[in-house]
């Protein structure tokens, strides 16, 4: 239960206030809800920092990341971390695949509040956006406590655990041409938590595959991405690859049995990979 609320007015102030006992308060749809997964003694509200708003096309100032295979682009799409899901849906600059991912949040009221940066920072295993950002090769612009700007691709940010937990996410950066990105969300109802959200991107033959599997993981599926980049795989081969991935431990829970989830994940990957590699959204 939070005991203190600080309303930050600059990015530097907000970043300097973040520590293990504090949490950034963005849209508040997670942190303030009953049963929230976030616990912090101090909330640092970042809702009044104008630099965190806005959607625009800018020159790419991010470094190339050879480890993740992220290239440097000429121009990129910058989405301020405090942009709401509805801001993204309404923007003329945002590609259709990202609008679709934002619409996975079915409630218009919630889309008016929930922010892009907040959803990314949570790294939830039922994330609306993260699989799509992984498939699109998105990068994050952050500010650390000392005021240094840090760029990380979404894949590295995901895999880094808590390393960048105290950094303020400033913006999401997307290549203007991310190739074809296709996503699918499986849930009992539009309002329910997703059992699965899968996204496959394909650009110049290179496949990127991100998945949010409830009670299992939010993951960039690197091996399968490589295999799909190098050859076509049928449903059975994809299912075998999913079953062989020992890092994915599927729970038997209200969302389904492990066998059901593996099957569902593999057939969705198969369908989306065919679409993405075939150039169809």
């Amino acid at each position: 239960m939070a005991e203190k609320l600080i309303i930050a007015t600059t990015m530097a102030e907000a970043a300097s206030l973040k520590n293990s006992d504090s949490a950034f308060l963005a849209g508040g749809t997670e942190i303030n809800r009953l049963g929230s997964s976030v616990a912090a003694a101090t909330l640092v509200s970042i809702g009044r920092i104008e630099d965190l708003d806005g959607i625009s096309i800018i020159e790419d100032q991010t470094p190339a990341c050879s480890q993740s295979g992220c290239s440097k682009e000429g121009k990129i799409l910058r989405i301020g971390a405090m942009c709401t899901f509805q801001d993204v849906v309404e923007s003329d600059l945002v590609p259709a695949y990202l609008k679709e991912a934002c619409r996975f949040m079915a409630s218009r009221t919630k889309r008016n509040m929930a922010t892009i940066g907040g959803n990314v920072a949570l790294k939830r295993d039922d994330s609306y956006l993260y699989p799509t950002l992984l498939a699109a090769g998105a990068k994050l612009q952050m500010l650390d406590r000392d005021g240094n700007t840090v760029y990380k691709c979404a894949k590295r940010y995901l895999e880094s655990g808590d390393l960048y937990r105290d950094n303020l996410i400033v913006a999401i950066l997307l290549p203007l041409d991310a190739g074809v990105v296709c996503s699918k969300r499986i849930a009992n109802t539009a309002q329910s938590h997703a059992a699965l959200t899968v996204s496959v991107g394909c650009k110049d033959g290179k496949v990127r595959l991100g998945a949010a599997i409830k009670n299992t993981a939010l993951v960039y599926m690197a091996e399968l991405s490589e295999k799909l980049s190098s050859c076509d795989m049928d449903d059975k081969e994809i299912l075998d690859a999913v079953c062989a991935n020992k890092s994915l431990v599927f729970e038997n829970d209200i969302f389904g049995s492990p066998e059901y989830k593996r099957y569902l994940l593999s057939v969705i990957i198969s369908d989306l990979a065919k679409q993405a590699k075939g150039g169809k959204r």
Partner: protein
Amino acid sequence: MEANISFRLNGEMVSISTDPLRRLLDVLREDLGCIGTKEGCSEGECGACSILLNGHMVTSCIIPVGAVDGQDVMTIEGVSKTEGGKIIVQAFADGGAVQCGFCIPGMVIAAYYLLSNNPNPTEEEIRLGISGNICRCTGYDLVVESIKLAAQRGGDVWKR
């Protein structure tokens, strides 16, 4: 720890001294008498506590009151006194939209927000417009029809 918080509520400035981490919903209901705003899920999902914050529909159960300092808040009490709000309330009554009534303040806010931004919505747009409002009586069809009626009756009111 208390703080002085001021905001515009239904067109009037209000100032209170309270814990800034209290939910806006609780402050509206317990301190400011706006009991039309209901508490449903407390998770920001059901829309019973919907209000307009700076003209945008949001759920007041997940907003700390400290975050609305200096902002503009409109509740069902304010909306129902506007020309458009009166049209919606009458349309809901005439259209039989109200069963148990618990979700209706949120539904009226959603309808007001929708029609203020889109005076002639299609049925699909209406259903999307109330996508953040859950009715446990499942009486959505009559709500949708009543919003259509409000759109027709409002005419130019929604185009201002």
